[in-house]
């Protein structure tokens, strides 16, 4: 184990995979000379040269599509899209092409591409630079979408994504790059499609991913200390495929769930999780599944407004209390009947 930041875990993993497999190359805006907008690719141009660390023009559709085409011929490109907001410029190539090529042509060509891109609000970047739109990609069969929350998962999921023969959208988060954690020294890939139960408990299941997995863990710790609550936390890690069985097993045990998400509520990831629980654990629920999500506005710049629009630890604590209150009322009512 080595303690390192999320950023270091990504940088070291990219480097290690490039050393391991010469078919791995990096493409993106400002990833070479500038060393990455968020310095994830620091030092890699110097070590591997322009052939394998390619600065691209500002042309998301062009370079993402080119990476997909290169992947069709067996390269393993890792594309950095500076933020997920800009991935919309490449939407046609990702959704209409990367996601379709393997199936639409009857399995004749694989597309082993990784698209790394950070999302995340709370940085006062305003409406166009603060979105969490991984949902757009998680909706599409043919894509895999992973969202690590820890440096260890960043490493093991990035290894898995690079070695995977399908297109993988690898969601990062601006607020997580400087977070630290223990990272295993070996290069065992994670299993895509598996959530992690990061804290076991019996009172309620709290579900999140990426930055919201941290918020969930923080709330669970806080409520254990303040209220003696025993909350189970699930870090989804994979948004497509979604690990439904892990969610269902947990809710069958806890009988209550709150989903925390850094995107808008309507049609969001939380809606899918809540529907999953309704389908798979309806008879086990003692309270409606509660979602804590962003206010449905383009995220404002001004700090006071931005903070009000984003889910906070207090919002989650309140949602947990209200859900457990509802559980208590139900138990009371059942007891009186």
């Amino acid at each position, binding site marked *: 184990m080595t303690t390192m930041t999320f950023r270091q875990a990504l940088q070291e993993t990219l480097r290690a995979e490039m050393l391991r497999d010469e078919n791995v190359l990096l493409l993106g805006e400002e990833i070479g000379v500038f060393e990455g907008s968020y310095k994830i690719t620091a030092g890699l141009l110097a070590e591997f040269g322009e052939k394998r660390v390619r600065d691209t023009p500002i042309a998301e559709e062009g370079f993402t*599509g080119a990476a997909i085409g290169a992947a069709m011929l067996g390269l393993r490109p890792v594309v950095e899209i500076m933020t997920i907001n800009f991935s919309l410029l490449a939407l046609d190539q990702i959704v209409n092409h990367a996601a379709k090529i393997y199936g639409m042509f009857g399995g004749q060509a694989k597309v082993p591409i990784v698209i790394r891109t950070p999302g995340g609000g709370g940085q006062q970047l305003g409406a166009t630079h603060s979105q969490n739109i991984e949902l757009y990609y998680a909706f599409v069969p043919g894509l895999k979408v992973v969202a690590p929350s820890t440096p260890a998962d960043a490493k093991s999921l990035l290894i898995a994504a690079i070695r995977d023969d399908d297109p993988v959208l690898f969601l990062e988060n601006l607020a997580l790059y400087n977070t630290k954690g223990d990272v295993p020294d070996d290069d065992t890939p994670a299993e895509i499609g598996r959530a992690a139960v990061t804290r076991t408990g019996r009172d309620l299941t709290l579900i999140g991913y990426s930055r919201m997995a941290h918020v969930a863990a923080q709330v669970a710790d806080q409520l254990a200390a303040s209220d003696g609550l025993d909350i189970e936390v699930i870090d989804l890690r994979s948004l497509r495929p979604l690990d439904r069985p892990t969610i269902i097993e947990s809710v*069958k045990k806890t009988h209550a769930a709150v989903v925390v998400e850094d995107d808008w509520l309507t049609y969001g990831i939380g809606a899918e999780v809540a529907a999953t629980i309704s389908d798979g654990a309806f008879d086990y629920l003692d309270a409606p599944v509660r979602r804590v999500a962003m206010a449905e506005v383009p995220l404002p710049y001004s700090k006071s407004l931005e903070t009000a629009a984003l889910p906070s630890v207090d919002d989650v604590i309140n949602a947990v209390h209200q859900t457990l209150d509802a559980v208590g009322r139900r138990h009371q009512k059942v007891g009186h009947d």
Partner: protein
Amino acid sequence: MYVPDTQFECDNERTALMTNQVNAPRKAAGRPAAAKSAKARAAAPTKRAARTKAAKRTPTEVAALTKVYREMLLIRRFEERAARSYTQALIGGYCHLNLGEEAAVVGLLSALERTDYLFTNYREHGYAISRGIDPNRVMAELYGRIDGVSKGWGGSMHMFDITHRLLGGYGIVGGQIPLATGAALAIDYRGGSEVVMCTMGDGTTNIGAFHESLNIAALWNLPIVYVIINNRLGMGTTVEKSSAEPELFRRGAAYRIESARVDGLDPLAVAEASARAVAVARAGRPYLLEVVSERLRGHSVVDPAKYRSEAEVLQLREHDPVVTFGAQLVREGVIDADAMAAIEHEVTARIDEAAAFAEASPTPDVATLFDYNYATPVANDSRRLPGQPLFEPAPLPDPGEDQ
């Protein structure tokens, strides 16, 4: 395939290459005949007849020219059969035909090696056949059968055959351009000698992906030939109405990409231009080739093309590349009427066989619906049919539990 023949006499007004040499003064490129092309074409057959003298040809030349004609006719009869099968509801979805583009298709692909790659759009049956793919399998794809080139998953717009290096068949206008550019990047990355050819329609040159891709290819010196099949209509919209620079090959200049325009009704002129473009790409520079062609029918089988004037439609008959080239070969004594009839007979039989094969090929088994979800199997992958629940009904919880 086609053996270049210096003795072959051609109508310079129609077949002259209009080139856009990189770094050359613009006036040196000459004035392309865009505005007068229709007039020039209308006049062409008589002019050509007047100029042409019968030349003695070697058996190899005769065989090469005959092969070009046969291939064009094969595409023609295939597409006519596809149209018929479509109206008989044997083919579903959209169906865009290469009718009128036979010379362009055959000429272009004649310059490619077997190891080169081809990306094209949704009007690609002819490309698949000309690339050497068995017409049976192309027709079977149209019929949605398991013996189709894409195993029934792609249909008319999404033909793919890895062994013939036809890398699609793309239904989204311009979608193939970044992909083809990336394939050229992969070749360059590995130091290979293959080239990529990427064809598109005239309307495609207004899409961002076209410009982003040409820019990238020029910056990185990628081995790719971009081909614009300019049939002067994007569905029903003319080039003049959709492109501020209607001389489309000139768009290469913005990226310092060498470019040229060629008459797409003459397979030999196209072959020559294509060979030159491929040579530039093989030397490590992208190239933009505009092939001025015709679309003899509507945008797709169901389009009656009412936006075309009667005069225009009449003129199309004189611009039929298959008829024109066939007549030329007879006139020049390359091939006699009996041989023409024999080719017609053989090609028709070949297409009958393709249709019969397609009809006999089984439809894909529903059990294979999830076979191509992912290349790397993944946990919790959904294999649920529409009417199935997400979860089997669970036993009710024990009421005493947790109470």
